[in-house]
């Protein structure tokens, strides 16, 4: 590097230097980076433990340069509970998709939150089951066509999308619950700050912290990366409003 140059952007040290398996336009890569930046900023890479879930993000250990346990489908908050009880000074986070967290793992996330487990949960909501081929998720929007709702989600038969950030905010054990998105640079910055906050609260032992991230799945939405990115802001945010739904550290 020349004497007048300085590094302004580089790979976080908590991320490995590996090629991605995620599809073009998928937001997992962005969210991985934000999580890694939070770990780096808090300087906790050596004591951070990731809990992988079943879905596109199962290969957490291929991307993060940390210790990782792989949980069965939906069980990451329970696995995280076990890990955290053995290593109370570690920083434990789960990284889950919407099928994993909001369908098969509904019981585990609600009770981990309600117990106030000192873990951080990152929830990527892209309104579909990505890995298994774009089936209907609990977060699929009304009318949305998926491979198992080929006529569009009919709320009279299939119910309504679940707003998890709001749901968890109602529980006594939840210390922090927020929804962010990563479809514009400004929102990526905001999402990064929110994820950092959710990790920081764990480090400070302030309680269970949850961040829902609205992201795109162009492959299963049948859209280009740009179209999919636009859908996050145009369609998803109407049903899933961004915001902080609970923060026990907020003043006033």
């Amino acid at each position, binding site marked *: 590097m020349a004497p007048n140059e300085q590094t302004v952007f580089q790979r976080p040290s908590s991320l490995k230097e590996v090629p991605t398996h995620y599809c073009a336009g998928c937001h997992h890569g962005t969210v991985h980076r934000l999580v890694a930046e939070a770990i780096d900023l808090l300087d906790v890479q050596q*004591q951070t433990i990731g809990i992988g879930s079943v879905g596109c993000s199962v290969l957490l250990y291929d991307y993060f340069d940390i*210790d990782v346990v792989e949980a069965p489908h939906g*069980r990451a908050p329970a696995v995280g509970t076990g890990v955290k009880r*053995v290593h109370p000074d570690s920083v434990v986070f789960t990284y889950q998709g919407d099928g994993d967290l909001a369908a098969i793992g509904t019981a*585990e996330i609600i009770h981990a939150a309600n117990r106030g487990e000192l873990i951080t949960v990152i929830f990527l909501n892209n309104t579909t089951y990505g890995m298994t081929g774009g089936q209907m998720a609990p977060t699929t929007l009304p009318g949305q066509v998926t491979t198992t709702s080929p006529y569009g989600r009919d709320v009279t038969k299939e119910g309504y999308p679940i707003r998890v950030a709001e749901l968890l905010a109602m529980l006594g054990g939840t210390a922090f619950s927020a929804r962010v998105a990563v479809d514009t640079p400004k929102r990526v910055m905001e999402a990064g700050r929110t994820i950092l906050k959710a990790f920081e609260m764990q480090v400070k032992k302030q309680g269970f912290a949850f961040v829902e991230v609205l992201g795109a799945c162009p492959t299963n939405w049948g859209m280009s990366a740009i179209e999919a990115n636009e859908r996050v802001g145009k369609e998803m945010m109407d049903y899933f409003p961004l915001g902080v739904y609970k923060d026990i550290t907020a003043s006033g």
Partner: protein
Amino acid sequence: MKKRLFVKGNEAVAMGALEAGCRYYFGYPITPQNDIPEFMSREMPKVGGTFVQAESEVAAINMVLGAGAAGGRVMTSSSGPGISLKAEGMSFMAGSEVPAVIVNIQRPGPGLGGIDVSQADYFQAVKGAGHGGYHLIVLAPHSVQELYDLTMLAFDLADRYRIPAMVLGDAMLGQMKEALVPHAHQLPEDLPPKDWAITGKGGRAKGNAVKSLYLADGELEAHNWHLHAKYAQLKEKETRFEAVGLEDAELILTAFGGAARIVKTAIAMARKEGLKVGLIRPITVFPFPAEIYRTATAKTPKVLCVELNNGQMVEDVRLSVDPMADVRFYGRPGGTGSLPDPEEIFAQICKHYKD
């Protein structure tokens, strides 16, 4: 004289676990094993341990997975219907080689079944219960003392082989009280270090991953052969059984766990009548003590297998005996009013002894 305590079987399991250094317990209430979580909720805080009553058996076994992956000595306990729910987690733990102890105080089934004595879960225990083809170590105590001793052993075997171990009791053993001689647990000095455990990298060059997903070419097959080799090693090194009176036996009885208690009394009655009856009691039902069946039946071909189910272990007995052996079965499936007394087994001995 050594201190003797009058202890309920379920509490002996919990006492053995604490003595063996178990400091994490995750469970969910189910009859007839509730004394175990109740004991743990009371005693764990006194030794600085962790007790969590989970929202479900599914959550409990996954907390066990997490704590075991993190290197802790961890246990859960349940009964048949709850063990069914734990099957998913047990498969993941077997696949990702997470040591832990799972206790099944059996009750009769299928479905909700009942809450009293049965050995209906033999298949579930030794054939894996969950998906994917795996084994647990399965220990089958037949007394309160053995519930205590074998629970301790289960922790050591689990850690030695990086495998979940099951203690397979039943409602008779769990709910009865008898004398127990407590003793200090001697942690084996040669247990391998848990350098694979998830602790946070803590300066290690590479992060540890505890996982069961293998997608690269040939990787999963290699992993399955590795697990298979472990099961072969268990068969070779960790098979345990009790054999009594095989020297002069004309008829060999075989039974495990609670059934073996009834059989032992019936054998004493038969011996009193001059009938030459021996016993093989597997203590490990996985690995199954096949060799003793083969050698014993080469000399004494007639075997009567007695179980508190409709015939489960008898299949392993038939696979183990000398090709010329004559294996017979007597069992009752459990449920209220379905527990044979020693006289009933004695009558079976008399019948099979003659023809």
